[in-house]
């Protein structure tokens, strides 16, 4: 349903209740139509004025996508419900992102204002990119960072203006053949960020991207590449929302991180997808000597999320970390996890995954830790904790730890706890409404992990959990 009313001050408050569930009718200047074929890819290449090498890259990726079967043999059967011929692969207003909010088309600006993006930008961000369907509508960064040589632009601008940097790493951490959805993204990607941080530069405030799906039956395929040069540091945060439609919406991103020697990248996701979104994302970072890649991943909402952030520990003493929270409410399946591939001595990795399943909700953890025989002094710690709220929820853990030889150490702990009807009654007897009792338990369960998050994000996460719990009580 189109939402025509203007934004009054008080409307913003109401928004907090309905989260991202609203959309405006928008006229698109570019529309690749419904379905996926070589023509779709050509349309996108033409619209974006892609160089030839990229057109070839996209077409090879399309072939892989069409050839590869859906991984339903190990993943959810629900994947078969996605009708790839009914999806719109490219919808855009224009090709250039505004550098100030005044340059952003009115209805797009309204959307981001409702989501509080400009306000957050003023308060604590070093730069913001706001993507609306296929393209960024706004992209800006603090002048001081530009002066230090930091690059923070959309993927298209990145590949046109900084081809030498872009091509060196693009598709190298996650090649198109990695999996069917990485291939799909490689074929039709648009939007996402390109970031380069020069040697020694420490970006103190986070750079933020906001991915907004507005259109129905749409697929969003952003592509992000972050390169942190030697000894530099950067934190990137992404937020995502979409309105609730009856038809399936697809979000299939690819994120590649490159932390050169001594660099640190922290990538934070707080997604709050509506329950019709299939969220199939490939995220992987490469950490060179002494570098650190840290994924903080909070998955709330969606119909099916499949996401296993990975770190390839390529240089000596590299560190990788995945801290993840997944919340599966009724009708949702969070299939999440982490991968740590140790390729050098004295590399360390840490995985803490917490999942919450409510009602009919289902969450699975899939882990992969690989430490080959010839390496020494490597360490991995894996902790997966599941919280089940009411008995029909289910949770599965599929940890796969491959440790060959005895010169490295791994530690694995898993726990399942339950919030029973008796516990909910106890809390209600003290005056807490059911939804609050559940929120409190969930927050208590994730608390020690959330302490690791930047302040602004822990507040946001708590708010999303409260909203989700309100929605789960009939």
């Amino acid at each position: 349903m189109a939402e025509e009313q203007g934004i009054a001050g008080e409307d913003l408050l109401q928004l907090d209740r309905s989260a991202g569930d609203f959309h405006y009718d928008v006229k698109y200047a570019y529309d690749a139509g419904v379905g996926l074929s070589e023509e779709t890819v050509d349309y996108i290449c033409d619209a974006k004025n892609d160089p030839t090498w990229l057109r070839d890259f996209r077409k090879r990726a399309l072939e892989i996508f069409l050839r590869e079967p859906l991984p339903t043999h190990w993943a959810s059967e629900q994947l078969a419900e996605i009708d790839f011929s009914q999806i719109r692969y490219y919808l855009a207003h224009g090709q250039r992102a505004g550098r100030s909010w005044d340059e952003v088309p009115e209805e797009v600006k309204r959307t981001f204002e409702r989501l509080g993006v400009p306000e957050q930008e003023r308060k604590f961000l070093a730069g913001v990119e706001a993507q609306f369907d296929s393209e960024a509508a706004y992209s800006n960064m603090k002048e001081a960072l530009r002066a230090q040589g930091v690059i923070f632009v959309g993927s298209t601008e990145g590949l046109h203006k900084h081809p030498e940097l872009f091509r060196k790493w693009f598709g190298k951490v996650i090649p198109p053949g990695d999996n069917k959805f990485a291939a799909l993204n490689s074929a039709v990607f648009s939007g996402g960020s390109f970031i380069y941080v020069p040697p020694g530069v420490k970006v103190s405030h986070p750079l933020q991207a906001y991915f907004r799906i507005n259109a129905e039956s749409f697929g969003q395929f952003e592509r992000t590449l972050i390169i942190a040069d030697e000894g530099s540091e950067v934190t990137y945060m992404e937020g995502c929302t979409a309105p609730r439609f009856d038809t399936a919406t697809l979000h299939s991103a690819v994120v590649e991180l490159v932390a050169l020697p001594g660099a640190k990248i922290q990538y934070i996701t707080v997604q709050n997808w509506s329950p019709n979104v299939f969220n199939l994302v490939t995220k992987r970072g490469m950490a060179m000597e002494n570098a650190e890649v840290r994924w903080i991943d909070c998955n709330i909402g969606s119909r099916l999320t499949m996401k296993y952030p990975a770190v390839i520990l390529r240089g000596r003493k590299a560190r990788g970390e995945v801290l993840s929270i997944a919340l599966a409410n009724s009708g949702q399946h969070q299939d999440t996890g982490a991968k740590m591939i140790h390729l050098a001595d004295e590399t360390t990795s840490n995985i803490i995954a917490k999942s919450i399943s409510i009602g009919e909700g289902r969450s699975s953890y899939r882990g992969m830790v690989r430490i080959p025989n010839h390496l020494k002094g490597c360490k991995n710690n894996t902790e997966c904790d599941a919280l089940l709220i009411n008995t029909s929820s289910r949770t599965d853990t599929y940890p796969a730890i491959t440790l060959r030889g005895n010169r490295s150490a791994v530690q694995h702990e898993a726990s399942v706890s339950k919030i029973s009807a008796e516990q909910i009654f106890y809390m209600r007897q003290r005056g807490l409404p059911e939804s609050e009792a559940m929120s409190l338990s969930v927050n208590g369960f994730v608390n020690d992990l959330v302490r690791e998050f930047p302040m602004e994000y822990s507040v946001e996460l708590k708010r999303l959990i409260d909203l989700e719990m309100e929605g789960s009580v009939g």
Partner: protein
Amino acid sequence: MSLQICDLHARIADREILRGISLEIRLGQTHAIMGPNGSGKSTLAKVISGHPDYEVTQGSVLLDGVPLLEREPDERARMGVFLAFQYPCEIPGVSIANFLRAAAQARLPEGESLSVTDFYQKLYREMDALGMQRNFSSRPLNAGFSGGEKKRAEILQMAMLRPRYGILDETDSGLDIDALKVVANGVNRLRGPEVGFLIITHYQRLLDYITPDFVHVMVEGRIVQSGGPELALELERHGYGSLEERYGSSKLSPLAETGTQG
């Protein structure tokens, strides 16, 4: 002003447990309920506070004249009903302090927020009075608490939430003699013209410290005898034997039904 229970019948899993309870607890009064195991004392406490497993088949409960039984458990709590559970459950990950803050906040009108400094002042005052270490408030509620610590935590919650009607279900069980005094003291500090208490216990020793105004004996879902504090002393001497003989029917006794030994 009173908590008025009128001809209350309730069942669980098709078994009638409460079979016509009538009892009025006025503000300022303290009532004690005693009775053999399985007679329905905890059931009464849970039915008053709205436990979803029980079905009320007959009767009513009025809180200061307002019908209680159609209200949600959390509404009843906010109206002033507090139950100190016989078996308090563990709430993992939620500290005593955070839990009580949320409960106190839930009692404020929409839009008003709790003063954190006032809250902690009050919390520490009550903890001191109950002989609890302050850092105890950061432990997850009831998780890994000893039996005595759980009971103390129940009284702490009651002291913080200041109910109009407090129901204590065997809060004395499992307490050593010093803890018993501390807990009794905690209850006595709350007694006054604005609060009514219903104290479920098996032992006279609690009533040595909290002198009730009335004592009732429950047998098989009914109150079969009521009196003053002297009734408890009498029961202590003679047990429930004669009362059970008189009021219990073996046909209705759950123990007889299953053939297990109490």
